[in-house]
């Protein structure tokens, strides 16, 4: 039983026909368009800043993706992110802990908050939407009460220096490498590890997976804890980029990017299917559109309109591309 749920389809679509290839084509076309309109788009400085925001968007997308995999949602990605931002800032600036210790503690807090979400969802059986809606408020509210919304901007210099650091010919931010590394780890996790396969199976069909002897509750809890840690990573990357711990980071602003990346990348809201590469490309699309509109001088005001239309177009394309072979197959069968 489990095998069938977990098995790869026998026929794999060639890459050129897949969704990722489509995204890549759109991405290259957009990049070419923006470069043609304003040559500054491919400047090493613009690519560097683009890479930094891309890194954050990718990790935010991953944070949502791991929960989507199990068929849930996490509306508290931004709230956990900002809690980790402020906790990290506190550990570094006020408690004076060494940076790696402070980061580890802050990420542990993110994991703990996500774990709390997961336990509540798994033990009570309440919809993850409601639980994380409530916890998003609890987390953000507690953070505001504890910090009085005051930013911490006397962090150790090396934090900001990491955000300014450039590698690989001056246009790659190490933050982007962090995001890609996490992506590789997640891809291996979902493709080859038992727990990863079981998490996907949980999302695909909760009851069947449970019947097959998989502890689905623990998989859901683990997914939420992982989501919390990833939201925390995104938060710490934000701290590195700004060089300060701002209470305005994260929150509701992360809601849209957190869904955009995975969903444009092909993840199913119903669970059971995620694509790490797609999430990266989806986030890249968002970042490219945002940066391109800025470079072309259209400004940030129309950005939301374009993002919304692109999301809609991408989802529609995915839907109709997916539905054609399905119809043919059902007719044959």
């Amino acid at each position, binding site marked *: 039983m489990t095998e069938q749920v977990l098995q790869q389809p026998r026929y794999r679509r060639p890459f050129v026909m897949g969704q990722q290839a489509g995204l890549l084509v759109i991405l290259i076309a957009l990049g070419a368009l923006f470069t043609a309109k304003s040559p500054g788009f491919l400047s090493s400085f613009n690519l560097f800043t683009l890479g930094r925001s891309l890194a954050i968007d990718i990790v935010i997308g991953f944070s949502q993706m791991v929960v989507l995999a199990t068929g849930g949602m996490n509306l508290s990605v931004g709230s956990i992110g900002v809690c980790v931002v402020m906790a990290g800032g506190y550990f570094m600036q006020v408690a004076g802990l060494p940076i790696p210790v402070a980061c580890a503690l802050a990420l542990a807090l993110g994991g703990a908050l996500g774990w709390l979400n997961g336990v509540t969802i798994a033990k*009570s*059986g*309440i*919809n993850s*939407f*409601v*639980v994380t*809606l*409530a*916890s*998003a*408020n*609890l*987390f*953000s*509210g*507690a953070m*505001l*009460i504890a910090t*009085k*919304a005051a930013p911490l901007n006397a962090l150790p210099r090396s934090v900001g220096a990491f955000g300014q650091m450039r590698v690989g010919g001056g246009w790659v931010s190490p933050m982007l490498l962090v995001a890609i590394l996490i992506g590789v780890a997640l891809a291996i996790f979902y493709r080859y590890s038992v727990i990863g396969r079981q998490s996907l199976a949980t999302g695909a069909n909760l009851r069947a997976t449970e019947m097959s002897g998989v502890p689905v509750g623990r998989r859901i809890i683990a997914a939420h804890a992982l989501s919390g840690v990833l939201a925390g990573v995104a938060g710490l990357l934000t701290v590195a980029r700004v060089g300060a711990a701002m209470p305005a980071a994260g929150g*509701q602003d992360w809601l*849209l990017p957190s*869904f955009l990346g995975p*969903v444009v990348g092909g993840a199913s*809201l*119903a669970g059971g299917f995620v694509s790490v590469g797609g999430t990266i490309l989806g986030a890249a699309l968002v970042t490219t559109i945002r940066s391109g509109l800025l470079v072309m001088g259209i400004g*940030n*005001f*129309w*950005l*939301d*309109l*374009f*993002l*919304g*239309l692109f*999301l*809609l177009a991408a*989802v*529609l394309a995915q*839907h109709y591309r997916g*539905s054609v072979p399905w119809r043919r197959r059902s007719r044959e069968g």
Partner: protein
Amino acid sequence: MAPPLEGGLTLRWVPNTDWAGLLAAIVIGSAALAFLSPNFLSEFNVYVLLRSVCVGILVAFAQMLTLAVGQMNLAVGALGGMVAILFGGMMEAFGVPLWLAVPLAVAIGVAGGLVNGLLAAHTGINGFIVTLATGSAFTGVNLGLTKSAPFYKMPHALQDFGNGRFGAFPFLLIAPIVVSPLLALFLFRLPAGRRLLAVGGNSEAAALSGVSPANAIVLAHCLSGLLAAIGAVLAVAQLGSAQPLIGSDWLLLSFAAPIIGGTALAGGYVSIFGAILAVLVIALIQNGLVLVNADPYWVQFLLGALIVAAIALNRWRARPIGLGW
């Protein structure tokens, strides 16, 4: 509002309604606030309190209708913001008279809802994603048109309506008082409303009984847009100007109020009175925190706690008859 029909008026009935806990919270909370701060029961404070719930009630209704049919409307605030801007813009920039601008604004809201509904019902894409995308697009239109600058020159009649009051009764409250019974009539007595709830309760069973789920979904999104548009017009009247930020903080309230009020997230069951009381409780918390000079940051935390408490209460009530979520 549906269960009492079967339960009858017994002693067990009152604690078994969606709103009994909320009503108790309001009474106890008001008594405590009146005790803590003599200003609480002053005519002006009651007016301020009631005025602050009008937009919220419409926003909660807008979300409640999509929840009723088993959908979600993440674009509720974005649509409201776009309607508010177009409403203010057509009056200031094109001199459209108020009597024409209000129906036009409502029509824009319905049109936005129609787009949501058609996409959600006929493309097979999850309504969550559809409204996430259209919400972003609506916000983009709003910000793109205004460049974040508000329209200030609103007709005096609108501003007078927004600020006017009989004693402690704000004129703005007329809108929810008119809309609520109409909504109850629609959902509980009219065939279209019953179909909407039937689709939300069990879409397949409704389809087998000859009800079109697609039509019900489109209708629910249209009405959601209509209610969000009314909320937007009220918000413009209340603020006295058409601010691009109108609607940006609606999303959370729109889900919190119906859920606290007992509406089922999965669809098929709504509580109009519960949603109204939930908005009142939230307003009371905000008002109370101001009166006792507490940290305003507590609002968000308490709202989260309130959602948790409401879910726990609902589950406790559902326990004896074995109804899960």
